């Protein structure tokens, strides 16, 4: 008995949630949301909700990990046990360890770690609700949190996923599209420098499709970058005139 599944893309080029192929889910970014951290950010991308907190620079622990010429970056991407439909065990899974690593490596390429020798910068990314695109949204939030903490960086980091669904390249796939689609490709960039800091691909894309997907990701990244900038300006507009000597 085969259940006929509804089509993911209609004849008119609309997706199941009514979006166009190159349209992102509703997006909201806020900076400075957590009191006790040195820098923090919150991102909402459709139903995906993520907090990022930055602590430091502070003493590296265990101490032998400290580098004499630069800071070390620690990153923990974690999904809350209530973030998915079926309760997730609260410990770090293999997937979370891997995502922590790719996000850390993406951020290491923009943060000026040489400014803080012998110290550590800790980043915590907590997924409160997961609905596809958490690693990219987590990276977006982490970059804003780092800038909010006043840590010098070459550039912000913006990331978005692109997917292939029923033969069409779509921007920012939802959970449903991710599960039933043919490919999913998270892309992270330093938008001003134009360099790619994160790129993963699940599934298959032809080289033409890959280029098309990358171009579409760039479009999404520009939208996210603008929102990240706005979140930071909004955060700091109240302190603008406090700096007179």
């Amino acid at each position: 008995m085969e259940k006929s599944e509804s089509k993911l893309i209609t004849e008119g080029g609309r997706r199941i949630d009514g979006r166009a192929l190159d349209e992102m889910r509703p997006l909201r970014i806020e900076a400075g949301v957590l009191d006790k951290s040195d820098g923090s950010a919150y991102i909402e991308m459709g139903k995906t909700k993520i907090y990022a907190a930055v602590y430091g620079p502070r003493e590296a622990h265990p101490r032998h990990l400290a580098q004499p010429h630069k800071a070390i970056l620690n990153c923990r991407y974690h999904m809350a046990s209530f973030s998915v439909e079926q309760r997730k065990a609260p410990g770090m899974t293999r997937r979370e360890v891997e995502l922590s690593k790719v996000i850390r490596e993406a951020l290491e390429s923009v943060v000026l770690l040489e400014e803080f020798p012998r110290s550590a910068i800790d980043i915590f990314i907590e997924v409160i609700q997961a609905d596809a695109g958490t690693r990219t949204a987590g990276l977006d939030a982490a970059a804003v949190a780092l800038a909010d903490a006043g840590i010098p960086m070459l550039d912000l980091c913006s990331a978005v996923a692109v997917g292939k669904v029923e033969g069409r390249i779509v921007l920012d796939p939802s959970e449903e599209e991710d599960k039933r689609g043919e490919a999913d490709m998270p892309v992270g960039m330093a938008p001003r420098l134009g360099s790619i800091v994160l790129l993963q691909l699940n599934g298959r894309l032809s080289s033409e499709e890959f280029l098309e997907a990358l171009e579409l990701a760039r479009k999404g990244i520009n939208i996210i970058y603008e929102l990240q900038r706005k979140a930071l300006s909004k955060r700091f507009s109240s302190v603008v005139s406090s700096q007179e000597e």
Partner: protein
Amino acid sequence: MTVYVREREIVVPGQTLSDDSRMSGLNTYVHQGKVYSAVAGIVQLKHSLINVLPAKSPYRPSESDHVLGIITDIKPSHYEVDLGWHLIGILKALRRRPKMRLHIGDVIYTSVKHSGIRGVFLDSGEKLVRVERGLLIRVSPVKIPRIVGKKGSMVSLLSNESGCRLYVGRNGLIAVVGPSPEREFAVASAIRIIDEESHVPGLTERVASHLRKRVLGGEIVGEE
């Protein structure tokens, strides 16, 4: 030679500031001949340089900064001093101050002699002061210029109105030493006002009236 930003504009890391690499000032960097911001903050155009003043920042030590620190460890040749944040200062043994004995937990006020890859070295000479008692307050290091005021105007206002002595460290630690706890707390609350409302105009006025009210009120409570 184009400048893309206005004075006091808010910028974010990676934002292009200018095409002229010679204009690279504080918290900026040059990449392929262009000047970019390295932090989130506001633009200051000064002496044909573009500086970005961070809205929030960890303390970055530079030579001759006055700092407050807490002794955390005593080693055979030096003391280790917690400067708040990620920094541990190194204070050489006090050869020139034979009378001074420092213990773990003591608060000292001194200046940075040298800061580099090998650590932050503090001055152990004549300028070193041990703060014997008082109130230790921690604020964000970027607010310190505001607490000091133009040519020290805010600090002298705080100390004149309250009768307390202030040790202001560039690293964000402030010690208030006064004749009574009430007066010390009055200064602490005034500093809190500067910290939180430094962007609202008429700050000096409000700080002065707040202090007068608190100092007078505090003394009345003290007498009862």
